[in-house]
């Protein structure tokens, strides 16, 4: 038995919940994604301040909808995992 297999077996025997660890990792990853979505909204705003007169509202709308979806999925991860 390799040291890693031994470690996993010990975790299982000690009642460690593997799926809880995965849930935590999912939530951290989605939290980072949420942060990224906020940055996109801000950057799109800055980009349109730098360059005016092109397709402003559809791209801003996509950025905001994307942020909304990121928030929804972050909350969904807490509920279903």
């Amino acid at each position: 038995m390799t040291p890693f297999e031994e470690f996993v077996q010990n975790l299982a025997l000690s009642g460690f919940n593997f799926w809880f660890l995965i849930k935590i990792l999912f939530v951290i990853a989605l939290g980072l994604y949420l942060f990224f979505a906020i940055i996109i909204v801000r950057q799109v705003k800055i980009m349109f301040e730098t360059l005016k007169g092109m397709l402003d509202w559809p791209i801003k709308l996509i950025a905001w909808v994307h942020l909304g979806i990121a928030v929804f999925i972050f909350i969904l991860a807490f509920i279903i995992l």
Partner: protein
Amino acid sequence: MPDLFVASNHKKKKKKEKGFDNKEIIKDKGPEKALAAFAIHPQGVRAEIQDSDEETILFLRRHVITNVGWITLILGLVLVPILAFSLLPFSVIPVNFRVMAVIGWYLLTFAFAFERFLSWFFNIYIVTDERIIDMSFVNILLKDISETKIDRIQDISSKTGGFVRSFFRFGDVHIQTAGSTPEICFEAVPYPSSVTAVLNDLILQEEQEKLEGRVK
């Protein structure tokens, strides 16, 4: 008696090919088309650093065909979960985790696509009657704007090489300047020879303005 030499018509034709009247090649790419890669005198499009009386003459970005690579990649990434779940044994993973994994995958795929689109959309080159502006959004966090006055341009060269670039008529325009940015490169822009011609016309106009003492 028939004319042996008619110079005037030939001259006019040559001038039309080189100058600002070269609109027949972009008749379907007007300023109203926000996704256009080549527009002459776009209405309402302005960079933040432009002066109020500065006229936008050319608006350029990378040719649309340069997006084919990442769009193909996105199509591949969209198919990954479908293939993975049909080929690999994921039944050991609880359903809720599988659902979240698929949602996460598509979120990342969308983020990648949106970032690539924004990079293309906001990587633009503007030629005004006073200067050239190169706005590069390298990625979502890095913005780089370089500009140089028309009268600081020292040398212009255009390069079109390869099958795809020749077929779709796009290439690079290299502009050597005497400013703080030694070279500005318009990468993969449509009709590089027309861009070069327009820039040469602007340099001549600027020199003429200098001679007449009308420099801003």
